[in-house]
């Protein structure tokens, strides 16, 4: 009896791993495919017969860095994204604090208004934004990208942080008040440390959105000066040599790696943030 039970248990465990492994493979397939294409010679990409064991080659890898300003695109992406997240946090934390802690007329309307900025299709405001930035002389610069990413993400960053703040017991603030702390002190020393997971979650989601942002980047970054990975990827065809699929695959992979690293590094916070902060709030 007991050995039978043990056997069926190990069988179900094997089955579970098989299913999960299969699912993981399915999800990772595009990435593996990129890598497989990116690290093979150009001659082995388009063939009539599938090649199961391609030759390993770094040709495409060296090419994208030598022939194109790939580092610059990467740098633009990183600068614009980090800058935008910092702007978001500086604005969203006080806004969320106010929305979650003070009662004043129109508070809920303001909260809803902030959220509603995400409800329309971005294309609707594309033209006005283009003119706005052109008149401000901000076209084709990383600063402009920072501002636009920050504007796009500000609403839900505020919203996620707000829902975390609402979960902090009011008693904690009352205690800090009677201990002699002012509002800013309370925010800095009590609230922010307590909602750090929420801040990290919101930041990562904002990063992912920003790195994938395409429409406004294309609109504002009219030359490679301000190109980010997402726009560079779209414009990247290989130039006069025709379509270079292995180079395209590698660039795509490069655009994917930073987000992947960030998400893996903080996945514990992220899952908690998505369920508790965003959904519950």
């Amino acid at each position: 009896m007991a050995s039978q039970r043990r056997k069926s248990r190990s069988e179900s465990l094997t089955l579970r791993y098989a299913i999960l492994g299969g699912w993981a493979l399915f999800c990772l397939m595009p990435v593996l495919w990129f890598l497989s294409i990116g690290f093979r010679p150009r001659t082995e990409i388009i063939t009539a017969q599938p090649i199961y064991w391609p030759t390993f080659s770094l040709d495409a890898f060296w090419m994208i860095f030598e022939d194109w300003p790939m580092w610059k695109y990467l740098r633009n992406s990183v600068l614009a994204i980090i800058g935008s997240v910092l702007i978001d946090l500086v604005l969203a934390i006080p806004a969320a604090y106010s929305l979650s802690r003070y009662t004043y007329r129109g508070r809920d309307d303001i909260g809803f208004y902030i959220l509603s900025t995400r409800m329309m299709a971005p294309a609707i405001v594309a033209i006005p934004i283009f003119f706005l930035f052109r008149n401000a002389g901000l076209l084709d610069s990383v600063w402009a990208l920072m501002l636009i990413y920050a504007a796009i993400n500000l609403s839900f960053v505020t919203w996620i942080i707000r829902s975390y703040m609402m979960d902090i017991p009011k008693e904690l603030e009352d205690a800090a008040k009677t201990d002699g702390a002012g509002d800013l002190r309370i925010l800095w020393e009590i609230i922010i440390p307590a909602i750090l997971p929420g801040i990290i979650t919101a930041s990562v989601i904002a990063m992912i959105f920003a790195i994938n942002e395409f429409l406004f980047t294309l609109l504002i970054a009219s030359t490679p000066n301000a190109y980010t990975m997402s726009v560079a990827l779209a414009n990247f065809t290989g130039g006069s040599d025709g379509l270079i699929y292995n180079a395209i695959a590698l660039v795509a992979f490069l655009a994917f790696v930073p987000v992947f690293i960030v998400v893996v590094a903080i996945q514990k916070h992220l899952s908690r943030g998505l369920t508790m902060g965003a959904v519950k709030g």
Partner: protein
Amino acid sequence: MARIELSGIQKRWGKVVGVRDVDIEIADEEFVVFLGPSGCGKTTTMRMIAGLEEPTEGEVIMDGEVMNDIDARDRDVAMVFQGYALYPNMTIYENIRFPLRMREVPKGEQDALVRRAAEMTELTDYLDRKPSALSGGQRQRAALARAIVRQPQVFLMDEPLSNLDAKLRQAMRVQIKHIQRQLKVTTVYVTHDQIEAMTLADRIVIMEGGAIQQIGTPDDIYNDPANTFVAGFIGSPPMNLVEGAMDAGTFTAQGIEVTGLPAALSGNVVLGFRPEDCTVGGNTPHLTGSVFGVEPTGDLTYLTIKVGGQQIEVKADRAFRAELDTEITVTFDPARICLFDAKSGERLR
């Protein structure tokens, strides 16, 4: 230290009245307990003393100075909360030091003060831990240490023991009282637990429906209740209250007759007597009923008697036993009887 005066305090939220017309003077170094069922306005009253809530009407006065417009952080009060409210990201040491940092106590003095508070609350070994690594009792002591560390004018404690188990609660009660006597700080303590109120208080303030029902020493409150609410709230089990008719010094209700009461009273009254002021049997019994329940506890026996549709609680001798539904008689101590107006519930004297 500080005297606190609440003068005509009211708190309303729109049409909802939380606290109505509270007037009380609390002497320097006094330990006052606000006691009442949940929602009676006791916590709101305390929060108004702390400055966390603003009175709609009336004045909060400390040492002769009106405090209404002074922020919580500028009042020299320290508060202990029901949920401890320890800062989760700081160690216990940092938690206790927090009020000192906020009030800009010189850096050199901070360490000694923190260690002294930790010693008084027996937390010296736990200073490096985060609150999450402490037990409920230790967290409560840490909250207490944070309150006493800067020797405020006033301690405010909002049901500080209600999250602890019974044994720990008793130990903490003794500790709180000891510390309060040692530091000689005016203390206001809110609870719904009458044992806490009776054991800790110099004076008890009983509240119900946002209003004060009675203010007095624990003995006053217990022996001399001002109305049927107080009589029915204090004591375990509380005072028996029986409605009946009064005529020429004789009280009669179904199954009960008491003579020799003040002849001036007449009409409908409520007769109150405590379970421990009753004797089973007696030569001229006041009450006749049937046994409904017998609950021995070891040191005494709780006897429940059914009289005219009402249950009367009696504390009988620990050896007392009786069959259910048998007839039983009880005699009261006439000196300990209280009479209340049947309509208003106010005490008749």
